């Protein structure tokens, strides 16, 4: 190796390091500005909502001097910019404030409600993927056939039926009439004394506790709302799978594979779906992130103590600390899931991996 070559490669390495540092820096700048923007918009929307937050704490019947005192305690008599400054300062030191409704620190509340939503969203997405992808593939392979039409109708239904109505109907049929599943809530009251949550993900907790009776009960509770959510993500996933698959099935390598004499099954599942799977990851990640926001109506019908209900309830009471905390958590989850799907994308797509 000559002298100049070493210099060149050292220079290249340096340049690459700069590039990486620059991309990390620009990423950080984007994240920070996104967060600040998110905070500012939510904060000021919250302050112009024509609801008096003090009312939520002390109620309609409180005497005037109590209301004034609470308003002062909450700093609501300060100018908006000062309130915002104080809030951001708190967040930077890890203090998201206290929810006026539950009087707990917001993060304590969210630690309690978020696992409920996340567990439901995870099971829902699993169901959506398990059924959505095969249906999408089927529709693509049998394009224009009755199977394709049926899949399309299923998807259309999932998109257009109000989840509130479908949820109640599902409860009526599977819980009230047939008795196949358990009713609303996460767990039966009989377990209220024996079951201790560890992680907040009840299915996992039941396994950790080796409490199979509880596991069964929790599963019976989650299956209905999760299937419902799964149906909605299925509608989206199957449609996207179909279009990605159609795109792949027209590629030349498929023709080459057929010419090689590969079985149709291997061509579809081994080749086409594998390539269609890469963009599908983004689709699944986004639909998962969407479910993580908490489906307010599903949570309401199934009395599911999750994030969606928490934030809605907070919003209606102008409990802005809780709303802001929830927004930050959801924002972070969105960013994290997007990053994760980016990384997965790179790992699975050889073209991005090599470089």
């Amino acid at each position, binding site marked *: 190796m000559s002298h100049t070559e070493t210099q060149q490669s050292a220079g290249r390495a340096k340049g690459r390091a700069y590039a990486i540092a620059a991309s990390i820096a620009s990423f950080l700048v984007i994240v920070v500005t996104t967060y600040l923007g998110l905070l500012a918009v939510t904060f000021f929307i919250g302050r112009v*909502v*024509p*609801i*008096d937050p003090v*009312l*939520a*704490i*002390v*109620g*309609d*019947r*409180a*005497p*005037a*001097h*109590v209301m004034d*005192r609470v308003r*002062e*305690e909450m700093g609501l008599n300060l100018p908006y910019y000062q309130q915002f400054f104080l809030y951001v300062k708190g967040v930077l030191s890890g203090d998201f404030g206290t929810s006026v*409704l*539950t*009087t*707990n620190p917001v993060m304590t*509340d969210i630690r*309690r409600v978020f696992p409920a939503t996340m567990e439901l969203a995870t099971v829902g997405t699993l169901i959506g993927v*398990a059924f959505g992808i*095969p249906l999408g593939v089927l529709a693509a392979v049998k394009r224009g056939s009755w199977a394709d039409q049926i899949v399309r109708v299923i998807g259309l239904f999932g998109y257009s039926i109000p989840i509130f109505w479908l949820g*109640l109907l599902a*409860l*009526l049929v*599977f*819980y*009230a009439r*047939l*008795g*196949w*599943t*358990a*009713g*609303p*809530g996460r767990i*039966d*009251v*009989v377990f*209220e004394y024996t079951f201790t949550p560890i992680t907040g993900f009840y299915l996992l907790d039941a396994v950790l506790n080796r409490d199979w009776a509880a596991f*069964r009960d929790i*599963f*019976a509770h989650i*299956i209905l709302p999760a299937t419902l959510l799964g149906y909605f993500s299925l509608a989206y996933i199957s449609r996207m799978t179909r279009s990605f698959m159609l795109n792949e099935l027209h590629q030349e390598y498929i023709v080459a594979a057929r010419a090689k004499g590969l079985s149709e099954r291997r061509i579809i599942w081994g080749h086409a779906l594998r390539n269609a799977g890469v963009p599908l990851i983004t689709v699944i990640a986004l639909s998962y992130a969407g479910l993580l926001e908490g489906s307010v109506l599903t949570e*309401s*019908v*199934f*009395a599911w*103590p999750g994030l969606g*209900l*928490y934030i809605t*309830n907070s919003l*209606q*009471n*102008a409990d802005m600390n809780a709303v802001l905390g929830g927004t930050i958590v959801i924002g972070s989850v969105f960013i994290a899931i997007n990053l994760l799907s980016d990384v997965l994308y790179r790992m699975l797509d050889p073209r991005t991996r090599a470089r």
Partner: protein
Amino acid sequence: MFMGKMNARTLLASAALAMIAYAGSPALAATPADTLVQAWAIDDTITLDPAESFELSPAEFLGNAYDMLVRLDIDDTTKVKGGVAESWTVSDDGLTYTFKLKPGLKFASGNPITAEDVAWSFERAVKLDKSPAFILTQFGLTKDNVTEKAKAADADTFVFTVDKSYAPSFVLNCLTATVGAVVDKKLVLEHVAPVTPSDDYKYDNDFGNGWMKTGYAGSGPFKIRDWRANEVLVMERNDNYYGEKPALARVIYRHVKESATQRLMLEAGDIDVARNLEPGDLEAVSKNADLTTTSAPKGTVYYISLNQKNPNLAKPEVREAFKYMVDYDAIGSTLIKGIGEIRQTYQAKGVLGALEASPYKFDIAKAKELLEKAGLKDGFSVTFDVRNSQPVSGIAEAFQQTAGQAGVKIEIIPGDGKQVLTKYRARNHDMYIGQWGMDYWDPNSNAETFTSNPNNADDGTTKTLAWRNAWDIPGLTEQTKAALLERDNAKRAEMYQKLQQEALDSSPFVMLFQQTEVAGVRGNVKNYKLGPNFDSNFLAPVTKE
């Protein structure tokens, strides 16, 4: 062959199906025999501290888990009976109340209940000065004098000194409120948190307020074991309770908001009692042979109010005309069927001095005649702020329609509950529809808010409902005050009836109905009774078969 074609995917699918079937197989829904499970929207509970709590669902929890000096007599709700107090006397000048405690009482913790605990409960409520504190401070208690005015004379004698010679019924009625709950001083003192004193709050500790948010230090038939906001509240039998012990080992409240969901759970047997049934679901429940319903009128009245800042609504004839524009019968038989009873006076049925009168009928001709007298022959337009929840939005729409017949064009402005309330409290409305729940079980509570308005200025300090509607009534305000000091119960009742009559004739309040609380109950639950207010929804007598 069919089996041969069975591949991995089919296997997986059938496994999933089998799992679903397995999960749901027996699920013979029934709650444990010693446990009462209730579904109820309990999201209004923000604290379990009796010195701070002032909402509906916690009133029921506290009413069952704490005891007060005196309690409302469920059999005759114009009277009180002893709680931890065995007897009491009132001095001749009407200023000093001396309570003798029942002997040998214990808190759930095992600590003895002494007059010192009672005095300290008063002290912390007054010094913390949270929403319900005024129920005690209206007797002249202040942060500086409370230790003198509410005092333990000896271990079982508690002396309460008031600043005026009030009607004894007023004083005793107020002491039944949850703010008067006796808390376990010794236990709470173990949990006080230090506080930096400030101008607003001069004390160096929080009197256990932080711990009491979720903690429990009472002596009622049940003790509160666990509360998770918007999720569940669990009460257990208190074995140290002095009275008859509850048959139930525990009561569990599950937070369920939807009426339809509650009904399904009740039908399936996953809950024993459903508390938020709407008329449609209630009807289905009442037709089910396995279920029963129970109901009780509650101290909450619904009304439409007319802001007197609006020159049209301020005319006496217009106020009267509006009372003829309500189709009382139709509303009673549909929109509030089972959940309320038409009532045109502002005092709740069952309270001392409640006036039974309903002179107004739906009469458009009469309303038109009155409008013409007011010089509004061609009607007028007015806005109406309405919460977007039932039954008020339905009633508002019905009223919009019937008022239209008389030529009054009403524009409904729908809004979220707290939003509409914020506007109402700032007196920026024309018309408002809402409810008012009694602060404590005494006629003064509603009389003070509907027929007194000490200062009608925009910055008035006592913002009663009369103030919110800018109804300036110095005469009625005086009469309301006087009724407080009338020590003859019969005369006192008469004074309140007179106030209600005046309000009926000339107030800007179109009274609509008194709320009825209803519950759907499984057939095997016995003795489940709702009381006249939430802190007297007593659960101790309930049994299950």
